[in-house]
């Protein structure tokens, strides 16, 4: 599979990244290398093998439905935002 320049730009736009020309080139190369490396798996026959979703072999990890005090207050959390207005996070207009 070949990674094209358009693929990099498309992926960047999905994540709302703006990339410089140099970054488009170097990220393209990195991604191409990663895919080439992973593609080695294509040579193996995996027909009879269960997909690995996670490696810890845990299951049914859940908790009771009880409210607990939180480590961070609303003020602290809102304080992390660049801009705040009326206890809400202010962002550039999106539609």
């Amino acid at each position, binding site marked *: 599979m070949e990674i094209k320049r358009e693929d990099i730009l498309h992926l960047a736009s*999905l*994540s*709302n990244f703006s990339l410089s020309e140099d970054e488009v080139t170097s990220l393209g190369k990195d991604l191409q290398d990663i895919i080439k490396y992973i593609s080695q798996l294509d040579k193996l026959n995996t027909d009879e093998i269960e997909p690995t*979703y*996670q490696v*810890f072999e*845990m*299951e*049914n*990890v*859940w*908790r*009771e*439905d*009880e*409210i*607990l005090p*939180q*480590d*961070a207050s*609303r003020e602290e*959390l*809102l304080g*992390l935002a660049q801009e705040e*207005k*009326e*206890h*809400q*996070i*202010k*962002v*550039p*207009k*999106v*539609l």
Partner: protein
Amino acid sequence: MKYIPTIGIECHVQLKTKTKLFSEVDNDARGKEPNSCVSPVCYALPGMLPRLNGEAIRLAILAGRAMNCEINPVSRFDRKHYFYPDSPKGFQITQFYQPIIGPGYVELPSGVKIRIEHAHLEGDAGKLTHFDTYSLVDLNRVDTPLIEIVSMPDIHSSKDAHDYCKELWRLMCHAGVTYGDLYNGNMRFDINVSIAPEGAKELGTRAEVKNLNSFKAVERAVEYEIKRQSKLLDAGEKVVQETRGWDDGAGKTTGQRSKEEAKDYRYMPEPDLPPINLSSEFIEEEASKLPLMPSDYRKKFKKIIREDIIEILLDYPELMRKIEELSQSGKESQLTAISNLFVSVLLAEEKSVEYLNDLPSAKDLIELSEMNEKKELSSTATKEVFLRLFDPQMKGRGAKNIAKELGLIQENDLGALEEIVDIVLAKPETKKAQDDFRAGEEKVIGFLVGQVMKESKGKANPSAVQDILRKKLA
């Protein structure tokens, strides 16, 4: 040309857990300040791990069974990536590959069956409010547990679309998995509508209308889309596959951003949440907690309560459950009478919604309808006492005591009534009326009954009084 519409519906149901799906923070943001029900997990701070709420799994099992669905023993969570300020994570945790709820069906009151493809658990997104030059983000809704119910494209009219959404709402409310408050977005509907010429083998191109929050809006949006698409096809144009928004005021849909393709979401298994693997014992134990469902009530009360009354009662699970409780000890005629009182008297009250959470006991309601059946209470007095049973000041005193306190019990003791009639007939001012009646003037009986009622301070049973009068004046 004649076209056949085909409609599939996705419905998001907010579950009424105490805490959110992935952290131990308050899930009930009703009436609370923006961003007051948030945790570091909702904020997606680096290093935060989601902690799955077991109650959401239990409620999903109930919701699934309410729709006659299989429950999948093994299910998993996946990340659905998208960039938007309503999700600080940059992805939604959902179940893409292995959802918890498998195929089933919902039967509409008309008997039409709509198949369910599957339903899955996922976290809700935050809420955006848009202003001229900026938008504000409130994360209270982030990670509220949702089940998204995906129907098969089995719906072919706006009426069935409406009825399906309403029946889903009833099922979820009766199952007790959601508050079911549509106004506050507890259930939201996305509709996929396409049309194809009658007899065509393939379905047409579909348009999706998102975020409808009332049954009426669903019905109107379907109607609008059928009209819009028919016009396009008639003119030889094509329907574009797109997401459209619904403007309730204008009554029309308009095109929105072109939809990301599934591959753009870059779904991947959620590495922070181990899979769910439910034993059949666990599933059965949880599923056995499912209370009676609308179809059970319809079957059970078919011959006792009028169909239109049952359909109204089904919108109020508390009332339906009370009727069910009454059916343990009450007679059929009493169930009919109390159902009618619920619908025609209680629901006509402005405060009726407040009363629903604290209904009178079955004993009080049966006592009341017994008094009515024995004619101890006139129908007007029955309604009055009935309403007092809901009054926080009066309730708990019992129907009989309330009726006595209000002086509403009718005198049915014939001996006592006869005495009162004699007193009235002995009064000189009734002499002329008595003569007139004997002379054949039928309508003066009303005046005489009125005099007896007055003498009895309104407690006499008027029809019994009339009988006695007729006998005495014969």
